[in-house]
């Protein structure tokens, strides 16, 4: 007790806030980078759940896509060096990206079939996908590592020209939001586009109706089954992009289980963001900040009292920060964030005799 009384708590808190703001401003670009798989995963969940299909298999879809994308890119590359275009784009990487998307769509097709046609329990379907993805990619990776093939490298970040980057404020904004690889940039565009489409387009209106009251949509001539299939498959594209981010943009290799729960955090972001693209992106940023903070503390620890206190905390605590934030955020938000009314309910078409 005595020890705690001697620690200047208020001072430490102020120091911590200062440090946090410092991390957020100097590492803005890193935060967006780290929030990319979470945001893309949440967008995948958004496509599913807004039309009435629960998807807890995002983690597995991402992992599958990460593995397939990496392996296909490496195979196409064949060890031969290629000269990269802008953003580090090479032919093998593009093929790998495409393969990752195809993998995401393929796994989504399984989920769609089980959830929509077979009308299986959607939680079970998602769980199967998560377990299988971890096991299959881990096993195949083990086989491949016995005859390792060189990776095809990864996409590079866009470099804002020095002259522009040094302009105050504008330069910071541009480097933070544009200084990324192609997948992250795509994510930023998708968040805005999907937000507009959800509330302003025919697709968005029909999707919301199918997720809230599918029978009402059906009576107005909307094919709910087809709409749900299309949305889940499009969600697979987004999960594929999220997976590709791991192995084709962030780092250029695959490790077993490398998605590390990002798919589940994406689900939390979706709930925290109230099932809207902008909301989910905002929530993903919160997790990105937690992630970046964990990294900053080990690479660039704060000085003074705060540094002394933090150096006493085991390193693992900082690695666990995104997960801790998930728990705290969900505990505070769940129950107040209302999911689409028909989320998770299989739709049966023919009306029974009454």
């Amino acid at each position, binding site marked *: 007790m005595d020890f705690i009384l001697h620690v200047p708590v208020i001072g430490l808190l102020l120091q911590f806030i200062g440090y946090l703001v410092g991390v957020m401003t100097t590492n803005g670009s890193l935060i967006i980078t780290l929030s990319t798989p979470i945001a893309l995963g949440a967008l995948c969940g958004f496509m599913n759940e807004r039309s009435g299909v629960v998807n807890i298999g995002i983690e597995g879809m991402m992992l599958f896509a990460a593995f397939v994308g990496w392996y296909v890119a490496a195979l196409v590359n064949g060890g031969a060096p290629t000269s990269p275009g802008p953003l580090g784009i090479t032919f093998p990487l593009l093929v790998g990206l495409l393969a990752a998307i195809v993998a995401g769509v393929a796994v989504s097709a399984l989920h769609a079939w089980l959830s929509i046609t077979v009308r299986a329990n959607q939680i079970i379907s998602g769980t199967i996908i998560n377990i299988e993805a971890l096991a299959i990619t881990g096993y195949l990776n083990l086989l491949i590592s016995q005859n390792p093939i060189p990776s095809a490298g990864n996409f590079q970040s866009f470099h804002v020209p020095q002259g522009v980057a040094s302009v105050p404020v504008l330069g910071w904004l541009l480097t933070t939001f544009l200084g990324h690889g192609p997948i992250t940039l795509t994510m930023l565009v998708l968040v805005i586009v999907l937000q*507009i*489409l959800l509330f*302003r*387009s*025919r*697709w968005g*209106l*029909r999707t*919301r*109706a199918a997720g*809230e*009251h599918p*029978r*009402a*949509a*059906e*009576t*107005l*001539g*909307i*094919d709910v089954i087809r709409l749900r299939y299309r949305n889940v498959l499009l969600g697979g594209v987004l999960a594929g992009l999220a997976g590709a981010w791991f192995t084709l943009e962030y780092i250029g290799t695959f490790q077993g289980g490398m998605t590390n729960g990002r798919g589940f955090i994406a689900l939390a972001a979706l709930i925290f963001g109230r099932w809207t693209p902008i909301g989910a992106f905002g929530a993903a940023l919160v997790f990105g900040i937690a992630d970046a903070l964990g990294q900053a503390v080990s690479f660039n620890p704060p000085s003074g009292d705060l540094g002394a206190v933090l150096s006493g905390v085991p390193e693992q605590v900082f690695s666990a920060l995104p997960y801790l934030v998930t728990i705290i955020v969900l505990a505070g938000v769940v129950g107040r964030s209302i999911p689409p*009314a028909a989320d998770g309910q299989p739709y049966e078409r*023919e*009306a*029974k*005799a*009454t």
Partner: protein
Amino acid sequence: MVVSEAASSPAASKPAALEMRGVTKRFPGVVANDHIDLDVRRGEIHALLGENGAGKTTLMNILYGLVTPDEGEILLGGKPVTIASPADAISQGISMVHQHFMLVPVLTVAENILLGEEPMANPVLMDRKAAHTRIRELGRFFGTEIDPDLRVASLSVGWQQRVEILKALYRNADILVLDEPTAVLTPQETKEIFAVLRRLTAEGTSIIFISHKLYEVLEIADRITVIRRGKVVGSRIPSETDEDDLAELMVGREVELTVDRGESHPADVTLAVAGLTVSDDRGHEVVHGLDFEVRAGEVFGIAGVAGNGQDELVEALAGLRRPAGGTVELSGRTITGASPRRLHNLRVGFVPADRHRYGLVLVFPLTDNSVLTSYYRAPYSRGLVRDADAIGRHAEQVIKDFDVRTPSPLVHASTLSGGNQQKLIVGREFFGDLRLLVLDQPTRGLDVGSIEFIHRQVIAKRDAGTAVLLISAELDEVLELSDRTAVMYRGRLVAVVDGRSATREEVGLLMATGGREGPPPIIAEGAA
């Protein structure tokens, strides 16, 4: 064509807008529609009458492409058409207002109306301005403009029904099917909807009107077709028929529509409620200090639009919810917050509104369901062991006395029709000598035959000296049975009127407005 039969109708000379010929649909174990013929002329209101399960809804679902018929054909304007989906039906000019609202609560009025027929500004985005203009135009049809940006969840039930009809108008329906559109409306709201329907037919729209309220059908319809057990059993013109005739056609036997309730002889106060306050699940007070008494040998009715606190009141009286304040006394004994079992031991019977959630265990046989409130007592139970013979005998008694139609007392309750399920519950709860009966919507969703039966039983209980508390959103039922009728509005009893002299209009107005001046509100009470 049956022109000669309907020669006196003004619509007779007009061509048939819709003909259904020999339409047949079989579901496992039942023929829902057995070679049904129906013709609807341009600009007429054609009523479709029948008991629950007679096949009206199936026939309309076939017309709307929701159910595929096994046989038969559909002709529109004399030409045969195939309707394989609601999209087909809509493109052929058929719209349907379903029995249960087909509205998405979280979407706005405009979004609900546009859905499926969105006006587009470009290939991707919708043209909201054009849509809003159109909706306001259509709204003028009702004499009142509606704000297209209101959320449907915030609208009162009457306005939600208007939005349903606006959906049909927006699609320029030639044929409009209305499946029990007045079931949830007050008499005033019904009148307004009827005026709209007449204006529509004047412009050439044909309307198929499904209802089980006979006086409504007689008031609005040009012609009436009656269906029983999947077959057309007759057609009538309102001027040449009456309620008794229609009821007999529907049921297949003579039915007394209004039970002769006779004189009542109220005695001592049995149930005394004082300052009763009840909160809902979210902790909001929804019943505000009710005071009322029910005497032995009288029926005390509480009328009101659903959602004005009746559910919470019933739950508080039945021991399913702890009152937040006030007292409840039964023959001088305090029973505030008493458990259902204690109430039952004090000879209180309770018929819940939702027979599937509260009244029955659907996967139990009728035998066990017949003793759900008394299984623990002799003779049904001896110590820890239940007596299957005694339970079986009791079940058979209930089935016989209350006319429950079932192949055996051992079948699951889920296999019975709604009417027979309800008769089983009534039989269980009415059994023996009762002090008090709490009836929550005791005939909801039942056909005239079952309603007649249950109403007779209520009167019989009253005459045996039981105090009966009847809570119902079905105004006719309250008026027919009650000696005194109270109106519940926003958690308060706003008026108590004499049950025998009160009129539908008088009580209906109290239900809609709570006795205040001015038109009923558009926004539902308590909506977010």
